[in-house]
């Protein structure tokens, strides 16, 4: 059976070119980047170079780059770091209802610790309104965190516009760019952001490594205290192989971005068009401001996991809501925030395309899904077909 992977928003394979640049740092160049001798200096140089690469790709300075263990740590460091560092200035934080749990749960934890959190609603396409952000801003607002593009429905937020408003009001602005890094152009100046987090495994780099951009002048309490690494903002022996891999993967993604996005957009639209022909189906998220690889559809009367299992039996890997929370039985908080009912939200399917997907993959998926939907609907007590 051919296997078709259409869950690139969950994770991606590491590109062979990336593995190749990582390998020396497991073996001969294994030094601790903090050490003064040859092995240490060479590891340090590799870090410096990776840092320069990432900084340049973000339009940032090298000393504004912190390497982390991934997107979740990045969001936690950004939000808790600013919150603890500026708590005497204010204790109000603004975020949105469709954030990844790495942002939402962090904000809610801070709430337990005396911070005030405003969670902004979104419209039916998943957009946060810049005007709502402006209304929510208060003199004691220290941080606003709005994701760049949503991991479930692919809606791309007007980050630059929101950033300009936040700046005007003197708060800091973090964006979770885990889904856009390597896909969209990320320039921290143009985006008007003060903090930006990303994760290598979403763009064909290794798992367990990410980056937090922190604008010069923004203070952070470390999340991980200890050694003097990362200019004292993130302790721990640096994951040199992982960091070198992140930089390489980011570089490759950004080189190929424009052509690859055009290709993916075509496949995406073909998928969306095909799935829309299924009765009682609904495409979620914006059609115009959307990640080039994201398809999210609800099929009424059926439940997501049973659809995924059937797809898996046909060799198709997809997701229903966020992979991170698939241990939970709640339907996607993102779809609920967009106004879907529980019943319909339970029937969501996310297909996210990637480098390995072809037109014939799309056609195979378009052939299989209607059969599965039909089969499950026949079993469903809700369906009066």
């Amino acid at each position, binding site marked *: 059976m051919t296997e078709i992977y259409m869950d690139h928003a969950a994770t991606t394979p590491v590109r062979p070119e990336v593995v190749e640049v990582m390998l020396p740092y497991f073996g001969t160049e294994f030094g601790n980047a903090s050490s003064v001798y040859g092995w240490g200096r060479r590891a340090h140089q590799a870090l410096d170079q990776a840092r320069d690469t990432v900084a340049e790709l973000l339009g940032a300075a090298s000393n504004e780059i912190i390497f982390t263990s991934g997107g979740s740590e990045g969001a936690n460091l950004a939000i808790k770091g600013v919150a603890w560092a500026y708590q005497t200035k204010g204790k109000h934080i603004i975020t949105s209802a469709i954030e990844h749990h790495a942002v939402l749960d962090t904000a809610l934890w801070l709430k337990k610790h005396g911070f005030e959190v405003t969670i902004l609603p979104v419209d039916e396409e998943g957009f946060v309104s810049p005007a709502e952000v402006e209304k929510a801003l208060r003199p004691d607002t220290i941080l606003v965190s709005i994701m760049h593009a949503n991991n479930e429905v692919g809606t791309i937020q007007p980050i630059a516009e929101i950033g300009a408003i936040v700046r005007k009001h003197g708060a800091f602005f973090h964006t979770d760019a885990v889904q856009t890094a390597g896909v969209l152009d990320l320039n921290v100046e143009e985006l008007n952001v003060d903090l930006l987090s990303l994760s290598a495994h979403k763009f064909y780099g290794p798992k367990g490594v990410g980056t937090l951009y922190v604008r010069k002048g923004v203070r952070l309490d470390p999340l991980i205290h200890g050694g003097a690494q990362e200019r004292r903002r993130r302790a721990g022996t640096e994951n040199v192989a992982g960091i070198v891999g992140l930089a390489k993967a980011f570089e490759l993604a950004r080189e190929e971005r424009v052509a690859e996005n055009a290709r993916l957009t075509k496949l995406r639209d073909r998928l969306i068009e095909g799935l829309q022909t299924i009765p009682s189906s609904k495409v979620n998220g914006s059609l115009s401001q959307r990640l080039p690889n994201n398809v999210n559809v609800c099929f009424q*009367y*059926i*439940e*997501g*996991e*049973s659809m995924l*299992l059937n797809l898996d*039996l046909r060799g198709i890997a997809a997701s229903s809501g966020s992979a991170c929370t698939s*241990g*939970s*039985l709640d*339907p996607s908080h993102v779809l609920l925030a967009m106004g879907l*009912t*529980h*019943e319909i939200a*339970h029937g969501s399917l996310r297909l996210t395309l990637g480098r390995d997907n072809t037109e014939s993959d799309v056609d195979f998926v378009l052939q299989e899904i209607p059969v599965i939907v039909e089969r499950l609907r*026949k*079993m*469903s*007590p*809700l369906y009066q077909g």
Partner: protein
Amino acid sequence: MYSDKVMDHFTNPRNVGEIADADGIGEVGNARCGDIMKLWIKVDGDVITDIKFKTFGCGAAIATSSVITEMAIGKSVTEAEQITNQQVAEELHGLPAVKMHCSNLAAEALAAAIEDYRKKAAADSAS
């Protein structure tokens, strides 16, 4: 994540459908939780002679519905009533922990169908 037996019942669910002239109908769960089970039973004497189900829910919900139809058929309603969710899970060679509570409603659906049957039977004999 699921046992082979769960996957077997999920892939080839037994007794899917409805019974037009059912003697008892049970429905449990709600769409909010993502699991709804509906069971139809036909009773002859005290014995369940036919049983059908429809389920909106995850793999575990479908498999538990399917397997309970096999477990109940041929049993007296009193015996069938005593089937527990735990027994259903065991019959399927176990379920993931996260699925034990929410998606394992089949025994309750069966109990509801039997209760419905009893009510109807009482109403019939009373009339």
